[in-house]
C-alpha cells in the first residue's frame, strides 16, 4: 500500500514539473505571427444590405459578396493568381476593383462588376499610368471621378470615367503643378493643391465654371488637410491644420478669404491626425489625436453614444470603424490590442448588436503575446522622446538582450498595436525597443522638422540616448544589444553600427537604404515636383555632399567591424542592387562577418510567405548567434 502511495506521489510530482515547464515561453513558428486570415478587405454596400470581402483560396484571391441578413455569400470573380489590390462599392449593386498587373510599379487594370458577378467590364487598360479615385460614388449613375497621369506621367489630370463604356473624358486639365484634387459633397471639383516641390498652395473656386484661385500657401512642413466641405456654408471647409501652430488641430476655414474661422478641437499638447465627417448628420463626428495611442474626441454626442455602446459590447479592446453604410446604421468594426491582432465585427447601431465575422489571425493567443509599453526619456539636448518597449514574457526585466527596432522613414512613426515583427522578436526572448526618434510624425511639425538632414546625427543620437537610458535602468545588457530595421530603419541600423562606437554588437538591415544619393535618384518621375522637398528632408546632393556621404553606410564600410545581416530584393527597380553587392564585398574584404540574403521581395505582405520565412529564419539565427551566445 505504501509503495502505491509512493508511486502516486512521484506521478503527481512529475505532473507538477510538467506544468511548471509550461510556464516557459513556447517558441512559436515564424509564420504564425505574420499570417493574415484568408478573408480580408471587408466592405459594406451603400445600402447596408451586402457585405463584400476578398477571400484567398490557395494562390487565387477572389471577391465575395454576402447578404448580411441571411449570411449567404457567393464568389463573383474568377481570378487566377492575380491579386485584387483595391476595390470599393460604387453603387448599391456595383463594385469596381483593381486587378494587379505589375506589382513592382503598382500598376493595375480596373474592372467593374455587379454584386451577382455579372456584367464584368474592363474600364481601363493603362500600361504605364496609375489611376486614383477621387469620389467613390457614381455620378449620374455612370460617371466615376478619377485622376490619372496617362497624359503625362508626372501630372495627374481629372477624368470622368464612364463605367458603362470605359470612356474617359477629361474633367479638368492639370496646368502642371496640381498635386491633389478635392471634391465637395456633391462631387464637384472645388479644391485643389499645387506644389512647387516645397510650398503647396490651396486653390479654391465657388463653382466648377469659375477658375481656381489661390487662397493659401504653405511650406511642406506645414499640414493643411481638407476633411470635408461644410453642408451649411458652401465656402467653409473642415481641415486638419497646423498653420501658425506646432500641433495640428481641426479647424474651419473660410475659403473665400483663406482665413481660419475657428479651432474646433486642438491645443498645444495634442496632435490631431484625423477627423471624421458624417454626411448623414452633416456635421463633424470626432477627431483622432495621437498620444502613445490613438484617442478620439467626440464632437457629436450621438456618435459618442454609438461608440460607448460599442465599447460596452467589445470591452478591453481598441475599436476602429472601417466602413459603414450610407444610412450610418451598419458598421464594419475591427478590434485590436497590442497583444491581439483582433477580429472583424458587424455592428448594428439601431439594434445594438454585434456579429463576429472573423479573426484577423487565429494563430495568435493573447496570453502568449507580450505587452507593448509606452516609454519616454530625455535626450542629451533635453528633448523628450517617446517610444515603446516590449519585454519578453516570463522573464525578469533585467540584463535582457535587446533588439532596437528603428522605424522606416523618412517621416513616419511607430504605433501602439499588434506588430508581428515585435511580437516575433519578443517571443524569441529579446526586449524590443522602438523609438519615435526626431523627425517622426505625430508630435508636431517642429519635431518632424528637427529630424531633417539629421540622419546620422541627431536621429542616431536619439536612439543611442534611448539605449543608454535602457542600460541605466538595468533592463538592457550592454553587451547584448542589436539593431535591426527595414528601409530607413535598416539605414539607421547600419549607421548605428558604423558610428555607435560598440554600442551594438550586430546590425541587421532588410532592404535598407545604404546610399542617400541613390535614394534621391529613386524618386519616381511623377514625384519630381517633390524633389526639392526630398532635398530638404534627406539632403541636397549638391550642397550637402559631405553630410550625405558621411550618413550613407555605403561610404562607411571601413568603419563597420561588427557582424551585419543584409537582405535586399535585387529585383526592386528603386534600388541599385549592385551597390549593395559592392557594399557586402567591401565588408567581406575587411573580414567583417556578413550574412547576405537575396529575397525575391514582393511588395505584398501575405503573398510572399517563402521569402518572408527565409528572411525571418535568417534574422532569428543571426540574432541568436550574436546575442545569446555571449
Amino acid at each position, binding site marked *: 500500500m505504501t509503495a502505491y502511495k509512493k508511486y502516486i506521489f512521484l506521478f503527481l510530482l512529475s505532473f507538477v514539473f510538467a506544468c511548471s515547464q509550461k510556464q516557459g515561453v513556447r517558441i512559436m513558428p515564424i509564420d504564425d505571427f505574420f499570417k493574415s486570415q484568408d478573408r480580408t478587405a471587408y466592405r459594406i454596400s451603400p445600402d447596408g444590405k451586402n457585405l463584400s470581402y476578398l477571400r484567398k483560396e490557395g494562390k487565387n484571391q477572389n471577391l465575395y459578396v454576402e447578404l448580411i441578413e441571411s449570411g449567404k455569400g457567393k464568389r463573383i470573380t474568377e481570378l487566377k493568381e492575380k491579386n485584387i489590390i483595391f476595390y470599393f462599392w460604387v453603387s448599391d449593386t456595383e463594385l469596381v476593383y483593381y486587378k494587379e498587373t505589375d506589382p513592382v510599379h503598382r500598376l493595375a487594370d480596373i474592372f467593374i462588376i455587379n454584386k451577382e458577378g455579372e456584367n464584368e467590364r474592363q474600364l481601363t487598360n493603362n500600361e504605364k499610368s496609375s489611376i486614383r479615385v477621387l469620389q467613390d460614388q457614381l455620378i449620374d449613375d455612370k460617371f466615376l471621378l478619377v485622376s490619372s497621369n496617362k497624359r503625362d506621367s*508626372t501630372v495627374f489630370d481629372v477624368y470622368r470615367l464612364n463605367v458603362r463604356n470605359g470612356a474617359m473624358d477629361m474633367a479638368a486639365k492639370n496646368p502642371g503643378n496640381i498635386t491633389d484634387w478635392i471634391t465637395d459633397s456633391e462631387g464637384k471639383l472645388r479644391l485643389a493643391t499645387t506644389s512647387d516641390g516645397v510650398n503647396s498652395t490651396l486653390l479654391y473656386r465657388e463653382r466648377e465654371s469659375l477658375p481656381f484661385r489661390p487662397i493659401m500657401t504653405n511650406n511642406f512642413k506645414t499640414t493643411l488637410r481638407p476633411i470635408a466641405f461644410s453642408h451649411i456654408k458652401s465656402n467653409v471647409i473642415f481641415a486638419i491644420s497646423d498653420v501658425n501652430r506646432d500641433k495640428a488641430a481641426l479647424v474651419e476655414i473660410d475659403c473665400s478669404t483663406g482665413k481660419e474661422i475657428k479651432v474646433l478641437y486642438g491645443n498645444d499638447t495634442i496632435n490631431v491626425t484625423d477627423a471624421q465627417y458624417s454626411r448623414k448628420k452633416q456635421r463633424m463626428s470626432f477627431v483622432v489625436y495621437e498620444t502613445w495611442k490613438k484617442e478620439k474626441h467626440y464632437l457629436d454626442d450621438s456618435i459618442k453614444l454609438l461608440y460607448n455602446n460599442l465599447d460596452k459590447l467589445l470591452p478591453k479592446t481598441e475599436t476602429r470603424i472601417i466602413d459603414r453604410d450610407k444610412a450610418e446604421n451598419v458598421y464594419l468594426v475591427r478590434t485590436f490590442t497590442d497583444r491581439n491582432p483582433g477580429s472583424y465585427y458587424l455592428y448594428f447601431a439601431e439594434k445594438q448588436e454585434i456579429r463576429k465575422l472573423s479573426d484577423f489571425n487565429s494563430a495568435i493567443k493573447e496570453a502568449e503575446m507580450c505587452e507593448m509599453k509606452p516609454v519616454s526619456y530625455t535626450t542629451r539636448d533635453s528633448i523628450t522622446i517617446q517610444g515603446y518597449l516590449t519585454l519578453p514574457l516570463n522573464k525578469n526585466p533585467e540584463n535582457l538582450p535587446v533588439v532596437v527596432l528603428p522605424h522606416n522613414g523618412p517621416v513616419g512613426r511607430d504605433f501602439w498595436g499588434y506588430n508581428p515583427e515585435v511580437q516575433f522578436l519578443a517571443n524569441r526572448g529579446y526586449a524590443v525597443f522602438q523609438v519615435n526618434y526626431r523627425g517622426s510624425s505625430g508630435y508636431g511639425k517642429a519635431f518632424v522638422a528637427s529630424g531633417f538632414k539629421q540622419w546620422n546625427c541627431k536621429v542616431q543620437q536619439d536612439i543611442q540616448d534611448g539605449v543608454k537610458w535602457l542600460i541605466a535602468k538595468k533592463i538592457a545588457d550592454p553587451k547584448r544589444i542589436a539593431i535591426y530595421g527595414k528601409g530607413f530603419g535598416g539605414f539607421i541600423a547600419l549607421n548605428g553600427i558604423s558610428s555607435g562606437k560598440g554600442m551594438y554588437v550586430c546590425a541587421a538591415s532588410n532592404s535598407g537604404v545604404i546610399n542617400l*544619393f*541613390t535614394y534621391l535618384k529613386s524618386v519616381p518621375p511623377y514625384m519630381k515636383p517633390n524633389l526639392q522637398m526630398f532635398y530638404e528632408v534627406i539632403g541636397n*546632393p549638391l550642397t550637402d*555632399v559631405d553630410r550625405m556621404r558621411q550618413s550613407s553606410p555605403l561610404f562607411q564600410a571601413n568603419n563597420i567591424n561588427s557582424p551585419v545581416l543584409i537582405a535586399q530584393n535585387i529585383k526592386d527597380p528603386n534600388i541599385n542592387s549592385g551597390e549593395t553587392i559592392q557594399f557586402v564585398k567591401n565588408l567581406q574584404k575587411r573580414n567583417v562577418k556578413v550574412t547576405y540574403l537575396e529575397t525575391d521581395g514582393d511588395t505584398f505582405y501575405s503573398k510572399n510567405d517563402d521569402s518572408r520565412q527565409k528572411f525571418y529564419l535568417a534574422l532569428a539565427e543571426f540574432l541568436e548567434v550574436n546575442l545569446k551566445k555571449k
Partner: protein
Amino acid sequence: MPSEKKSGYRKNFSLILTFISLMLVLFVLSLLLAYRFSTKFIENEFVSEKVNVLEQSIEPYNDFFQKKLPEVSYYNGYLDSATASRFVDTVLLEYPFVSKVIFYDSEVRNTPVSDGLNTGKFSFGPKSIYQFGSFVPQDSVELFTIANTHNFVVGDDFNALAIKLASYIASLDTSSTPAQDELFSNFSNVRSNKITYLNIPRIEDLKTYKRMMRKDLKPQPVYQQDMLSFHLDPYKIKITNTRPRLYQYIKIEPLTYDPLDTSSSYFTTEITLPGPFSDYKLYFISSRSFVDKEILSYFWPIALAILVFYSIVVLVAFLIYRNLNINQKMFKLQYDFMNNLTHEFKTPVSVIKIAGNNIRSATGLTDRELKLYGKILDEEADKLNGLMNKLLAFTQIENKAIQLNRDQINMEDFIESTVESHTLKHPDFKFSYEVSGFNSFITDPVLLGSLFDNLVENAYKYSPADRKNLHISARLIKGKVVFRFTDQGIGIPASEINNIFKKFFRIQNQYNQNGSVGLGLAFCKELVNFMNGEITVKSKVNKGTEFKIVLPYTD
C-alpha cells in the same frame, strides 16, 4: 704473424682505408650534387618568383580598380567639381600611380549637344570638364564649360566611353537584369595608362536611356552622369621586392626595353604589367655574384645536413670497428688462459705421473722414499684441488650463487692468523700491520680471508727477493672500513693498471712463469663487489703497489 693468419685472424687495414676513401668520394659527390641542385633551384626561382613580385606590386592598383573606382557610382551623378576634387585628393594620396584625373561633369538628355555624342535622340555631353592632379596649376583646373568649348577634342576619352555606352544601351535587354561585371566593363574603358569610368546608373535609368534613343520623352529628361578619366603613371607603381636577396634590382621599363650590354655576368627576367600598364613590364636584374650569394645561402644548410649524415655514418663505422677490436682482445685473453690453465694442470699431473712411475718401477721403497712420494702426491693433489676450488669459487661468485655469511670478527686476530699462515709458507716474507679506529666488524670471514690470501700471495709473488715486505693497515674512515696492502714490489706499468682486474689478464714477466692463471685480482674484485665494497690500486714501477679496499662498516 704467419701463425696468426693460420689461426683465422685477418688484418682490416686495407678495408678500412677503402671504406674511408669511398665515404670521402661519396661525401664530395653529394656535396657537388647539392650545389648543382641549389644552383638550378635558385635559377628557377629567379624566373618563377617574379609572379609574386608582380602580384604584390600591383595590389594597390587592383584595390583601386575594384574598390575605389566603383565609389564614383555611389554619388549617382551628383558629383560636382568641389566634391570631385576632394574625391580625387583621396585617390591621389592613396594611389601614387594616379597622376592626373579629368572629371567630366556631364548630362544625358534628349536634345542634341554640340560637344559629345548624339545618337538617335540620345545625347550625352559634358557640361564642364575639370582636371585635378598634383602638378595641375590652379588656373588650369577648369578645361571646358558650355561657354568655353575649345579644349574639347573629338578623340577625347569622353567620346570613346560615350560610344561604348551608346552601343551598350542600344543592345540592352530590358527584360533581364544585367550582371554587375557586365555593367562594370561597359561603363569603364581601360586604355594604355588611362582608365575612364562612368558612374553606373540604376537599371531603371538605363531603360529610360534606351527609350530616349528612339523617342523624345516628356518632360525633357536630364540625367546627370559623372565620368572620370584617371591618368596613370606606371613609373609611380611602388615595387614590392618580395625576394630582396634574389632580385638585386627591379625596374619598370617599356615593353620594348632590351639592353644590349647584359653580358653573361647578369641574370635577367621580365613580366608584363596588367591592364592599363600593359605597355610596360617589370624588369628584374641581378649580378651573377649576387645570385651566387643566394645560391650559397641556400646550399649551406643542405651541405650541413650532408655533413651531419656522413659524420653519423663514420661514427657508426668506428664504433663497429672498436667493438670488433675489443672482441678480438677478449678472444686472445681466453686463448692465453687456456694455455696457462693447461700448463698449471700439466705440472702437478706430470709430477704425479713421475712419482707413480717411480713407485711402480721401484723394486723396493725405503721408508724415506715412501714418505717423500707420499708427500709429493699429497702436495700435488692439493695443488690440483686448490686450482679447481679457485675456478669453482670464482664462477660461483660471478654468478652470485653463494650466500653471504655474517660473523663478527676481531680485526687484529684475523690479520695475525693470516700473517702467521703466510710466514709459515714463506719464511722470508716480512709483515707489519696496524689497526686503528675499530676493533671488530661484521662480515663474511671466509670471503675476507680469501681476499686477504690473494692480495698477500700477489704481494709476495711480485716482489724481488730482497724486498719481500708487506704492510697491512685497517682503519675506520668516515664510517667505512679501509684496508691498505702496501708492498715494495715491482709495481704495475701505468698502461696496464686499468686491465689488472680483468679476467685472464696477466702481465708477462719473470714472476708469474708458473702457477698463475690471471684470475686472482679479477676474483678479488668480484669478491669486493659481492661484499658491496670497492677496490682500487695505486702503483709505481719498481717502487711498490698499494691496493685499497673499502668495505661498509657494520658493528
